[in-house]
């Protein structure tokens, strides 16, 4: 693979993308999630569209405040409805999730769509034994009796690599180490063999060696279970070798989405490149100057005109501050979408200004 946006050979067929072959598992179309705050509406997710194939892994990368966590919860319709307005469409397995009755959603949650949360200490109920935290969804969704559910929970604990599950099943979360807690969290999420797993920063608080173990476990579980995974993270390193496609978020929008190799090797959006070049790498010599971008992400409670990145963008023009660029596909790769008026060299791949709702 070459640097600087020079076109490379890429096997598009390896990446199951909506519109190609089988119907996608998940189609998100123009999703908006707005919080009502005392300071006015906060557009945490501002018109996101993408689709996800069965058995595909999509990495969603962004800095804090980019809306990636809110997006993952919006996909599940998990946000409390009281102070949140959600518009657009999320079609999961042929069913519309946005505005669906709570009862319908609850039948999907934990059964067909499950989530792994960032901080397993906070995500596990401190006063409930590990066993029941796993068995309760088994008993609810699979209608197992207590004994069957316990047997299933033991087997799940074994599958996620917990030693002596028959002891651990009776433990409370505080009696486990951080890595074990996250394994338990994964066991809970996988309990009913979901079709889609949303993992929100699943390894952020963990040590380097444990982080690698947990990510490997997720990959292994996905391969075994034929499920789709959305891996939400701030760390490009987490998704670099584990995602089929990567979506980069900035200020509540997807600014670039493409196959992983293209995101790294054929970057089109200046923000993506800034993110890549400001990340320190082990492969670089020490004291390598990082290409830092000045400033910080915009305040989402203030309406944004034009491209949200334009103020920090080295290649911004007058147009960028006025008119928001739509997601546009690259000329040589219809699955590579980016939102930029002045894409990086190699930008001549722009084919046409498609709406970009379906990738």
């Amino acid at each position, binding site marked *: 693979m070459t640097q600087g946006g020079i076109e490379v050979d890429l096997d598009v067929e390896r990446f199951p993308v909506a519109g190609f072959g089988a119907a996608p598992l998940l189609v998100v179309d123009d999703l908006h999630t707005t919080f009502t705050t005392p300071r006015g509406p906060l557009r945490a997710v501002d018109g996101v569209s993408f689709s996800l194939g069965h058995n595909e892994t999509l990495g969603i990368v962004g800095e804090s405040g980019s809306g990636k966590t809110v997006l993952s919860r919006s996909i599940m319709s998990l946000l409390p409805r009281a102070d949140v307005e959600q518009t657009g469409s999320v079609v999961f397995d042929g069913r519309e999730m946005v505005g669906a009755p709570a009862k319908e959603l609850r039948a999907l949650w934990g059964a067909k769509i499950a989530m792994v949360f960032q901080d397993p200490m906070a995500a596990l*109920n401190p*006063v409930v034994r590990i066993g029941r935290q796993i068995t*309760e969804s088994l008993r609810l969704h699979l209608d197992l009796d207590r004994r069957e559910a316990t047997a299933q929970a033991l087997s799940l604990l074994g599958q996620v690599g917990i030693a002596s599950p028959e002891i651990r099943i009776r433990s409370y979360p*505080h009696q486990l180490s951080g890595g074990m807690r996250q394994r338990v969290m994964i066991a809970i999420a996988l309990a009913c063999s979901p079709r889609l797993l949303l993992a929100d920063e699943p390894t952020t608080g963990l040590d380097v060696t444990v982080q690698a173990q947990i990510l490997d476990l997720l990959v292994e579980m996905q391969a075994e279970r034929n499920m789709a995974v959305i891996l939400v993270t701030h760390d490009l390193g987490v998704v670099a070798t584990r995602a089929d496609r990567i979506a980069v978020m900035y200020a509540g929008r997807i600014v670039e989405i493409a196959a992983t190799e293209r995101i790294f090797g054929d970057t089109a959006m200046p923000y993506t490149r800034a993110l890549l070049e400001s990340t320190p790498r082990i492969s670089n010599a020490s004291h390598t100057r990082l290409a830092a971008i000045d400033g910080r992400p915009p305040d989402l409670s203030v309406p944004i005109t034009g491209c949200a990145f334009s103020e920090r963008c080295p290649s911004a023009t007058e147009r960028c501050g006025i008119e928001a660029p739509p997601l546009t596909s690259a000329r040589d790769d219809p699955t590579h979408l980016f939102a930029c008026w002045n894409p990086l060299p190699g930008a001549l791949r722009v084919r046409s200004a498609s709406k970009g709702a379906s990738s």
Partner: protein
Amino acid sequence: MARYLLRRFLTLLGILFAISVGAFLLVHLLPGDPTVTILGPNDTAHNRAVLMAQLGLNQPLWHQYLTWMSNVLQGNLGQSFVTHQSVSSALSHAFPIDLELIIMSQVIALVIAIPLALASARRPNGHLDRASTTASFALLALPPFILVVLLVLIFSVHFHVFPGPSSYVPLSQNVVSNLHSLALPAIVLALGSVVIYFRVLRADLIATLQEEFITVARSKGLSDRYIMWRHALRPSSISLLASAGLNISSLVAGAFVVEFLLAIPGLGFELVNSIQQVDYLMVQGIALFVAVVVVVLNFILDFLFSVIDPRIARD
């Protein structure tokens, strides 16, 4: 675990010793002379002195205390100067009434407070939450001795739903009438506790519902009701338990006041009579017994903390 219990037990003994001294001194500092109560105001000074010597009241205070304690430790709380009934027998008659009254009131309080708090916490500032919060403020302003008069006027005098004062029926006589006769005082006591339990539990539940593990529970597809009862209630019960502990002594005091006002022959009723008659041993005995009960109950509650929340270490 054993070490923890042992240490707690030793602390408990220390507290009980302090209480016994306190109860003893308190009673002996009361104004009045028991010989006047027993012999009447017109007897001779000589007879009084003889009686004082008989009762051991001419001994120095520390000596009287040691005599009393050594008897207490052998299970002998002494005899009433006035009725000659043994103090332990009086306690064994009166205490079950208090116990029943307090248990009834706490059951009523929790049965009202827990579901109300669960329902209010689900929608803070909703209609139900506002109504119950306002009502609880109103109740806070009413102490039991006013509340009991009010409720007697309404339910006994006006509607005849509950019997009025002096209508206590022992449990051994008729269970239904007994419960009926204690219902009103139990409700009076319960209302005071409901306010506390509701407010404390509601506040903790609202905080707990913000926790990530509640979102996780929702993401499993569990119903709201299941989440409230099985995931939110227990971690929110710590302050409830703490307030129950703090509430015990005022509950006992409230029970005494209500018993006295409604002429229910419980400990409170006995205590007030004994104080009026300067019945030293009776007052000492009741005070010591009540203090022991309160301390032991707190000891049990303390232990319950670690049952409710396994993270609370026992060492």
